[in-house]
């Protein structure tokens, strides 16, 4: 077996994991499967494209590549702005749609359907603005460096892997060590009781959206940097995201990341052994297996 599979799997897996953290948080705290989460990935990637483009137009110096990487300072700066903008987009969608449905006391399934409608709207809006033609952050070609053991990776890939690792640790610490993290876990256990003991549920909900959408934006920017940017990129990642969130156990951040890596590795394996066109089936196979044998996931609790 080609050891490169492991590396490829880790890259895809880290992006899936970052997205799956958002899915698992919305699922456990807002209590619905958000089919629009994939769109935050695409919107994050396009926000960064627009921001980096604007910065590059302001000052050409921001476009000169930093060190071994393929991009200039315009992209990291644009990425920070894009993360904030995607968080804002999530808050906007919540204010327009999900928040109102919560006030109406709509059922879970109405929320899921609304998220389905929101997903199509957001995706088609991107297609309307940017057309469906793939775009790239940079045209620069990168040479993959040998890492030993027959494994190669480009500096961009290593960077995105590092960023993902730092983010997962940060989110984990946020949830386990801070006041807002404790509030989030309390709301996930029992929203009514959390409200009674004085936890501001609305603040928790805002944090969930900002966190989930921000991580999705980073995943989208990584995917855009390493592969390409398309309006469909979020939709293509949606099934892997759900598979990872369920495999990891709903509500578990480390579980979502680990499961994201597992799904990514399974996809890379499928690409090597069966063929690239069957990549998406790997996530479905994992989903079916989890639902059959361990529906509560790796780190979840049985209901």
């Amino acid at each position, binding site marked *: 077996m080609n050891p490169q599979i492991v590396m490829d799997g880790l890259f895809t897996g880290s992006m899936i994991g970052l997205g799956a953290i958002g899915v698992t948080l919305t699922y456990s705290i807002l209590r619905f*499967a958000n089919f629009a989460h994939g769109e935050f990935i695409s919107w994050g990637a396009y926000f960064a494209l627009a921001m980096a483009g604007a910065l590059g137009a302001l000052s050409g110096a921001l476009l000169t590549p930093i060190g071994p990487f393929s991009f200039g300072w315009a992209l990291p700066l644009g990425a920070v702005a894009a993360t904030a903008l995607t968080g804002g987009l999530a808050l906007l969608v919540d204010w327009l749609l999900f928040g109102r449905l919560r006030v109406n006391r709509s059922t879970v399934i109405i929320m899921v359907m609304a998220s389905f409608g929101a997903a199509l709207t957001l995706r088609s809006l991107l297609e309307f603005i940017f057309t469906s033609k793939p775009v790239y952050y940079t045209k620069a070609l990168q040479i993959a460096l040998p890492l030993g053991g027959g494994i190669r990776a480009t500096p961009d890939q290593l960077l995105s892997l590092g960023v993902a690792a730092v983010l997962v640790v940060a989110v984990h610490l946020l949830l386990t060590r801070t006041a807002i993290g404790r509030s989030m876990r309390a709301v996930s256990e029992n929203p009514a009781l959390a409200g009674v003991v004085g936890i501001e549920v609305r603040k928790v909900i805002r944090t969930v959206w900002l966190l989930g959408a921000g991580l999705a934006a980073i995943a989208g920017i990584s995917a855009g940097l390493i592969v390409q940017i398309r309006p469909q990129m979020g939709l293509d990642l949606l099934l892997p995201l759900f598979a990872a969130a*369920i495999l990891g156990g709903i509500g578990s951040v480390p579980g979502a990341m680990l499961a994201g890596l597992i799904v990514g590795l399974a996809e890379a394996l499928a690409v090597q052994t069966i063929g690239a066109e069957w990549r998406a089936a790997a996530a479905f196979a994992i989903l079916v297996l989890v639902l059959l044998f361990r529906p509560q996931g790796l780190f979840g609790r049985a209901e």
Partner: protein
Amino acid sequence: MSVELVAYAAFFLTMALTYAIMCLGLNVQWGQTGLFNVGVAGFVAIGAYVSALLTTPDAADRFGGFEMPIAVGWLGGALAAGFVSFLIGALTIRLRADYLAIATFGVAVTVQLAALNLQSITGGPFGIGFIPRPFSGWAGDPLLFSLANFGLLVLVVAALYLALERLLRSPWGRVLRAIREDEQAARALGKNATKFRLQAFAIGGGIMGLAGAAQAHFIGFIAPENYLPMLTFQVWAMLIVGGSGNNRGAILGAVLVWGIWAASAGAISALFPPTEQARAAALQIVMIGVALCAILLLRPRGILGEERVVSRHLGGLSAAKPQAKREISEETSGARNA
């Protein structure tokens, strides 16, 4: 009225009726039972492909072409889609409600993938052509041909409607709604909720398969891009607009939304230059998406809303005693929101 206009109207309505069948299937799953299927397109595709394989003439470059009668193809398509629904339902119905949604989404993605890549069976991206059309002997006369096809679809939809209405008023239909409204109460009465849900899910999936088969034979050609998530979305919009839980609403919604869809597509191709049409089509989807979300927010019951359904015997009683005719839909929506 000119002949072309009548022929076009018949074509339009036939197409709308194939969507109406999908809506009726979705209504069994969602409207009556509260099961959320995000993979409608996948089940429709299974019906279409199975029927096409069974009925097309033998093809050299792919598996099959069994040249069976069209009716066999339709039945086969419905059974295959029903069987896949049963498998997915058996896997997920006992779990959380939205696991079913995620799993059906997975089915749609996987079916799409299979249709695209199993070239030796499905024809790959080029799809399957030469699917026999009903009444093809009359194809020389466009008016007669389109009217005959329309008549056939009217018969199918009417038969399905009557059968579903009958089922709805049967003890079986009442158990389904009882489970949807209050599962614990239904179980306390000894009803096996999982079993009933699974039956409803498989029946609904089978009806979607039938719709796919009917549509494939009406158009005569199928390809993977006919079964994108967009189709699922359209069928949902139809059911929500018409009023879920109401079979007449499902049919009305299908005709209405398909009408809006066809008219706006026509307007786009007339108003925009060819280079801008892809963009305008994206905007069309944006508007439909916003409309669906708005309906969910403002009028979740749809145009017709859910019909009050009681047993035939009770129906006679309540007609005699007007005070018994409470507005159940209010009550129902309250219970569903709780």
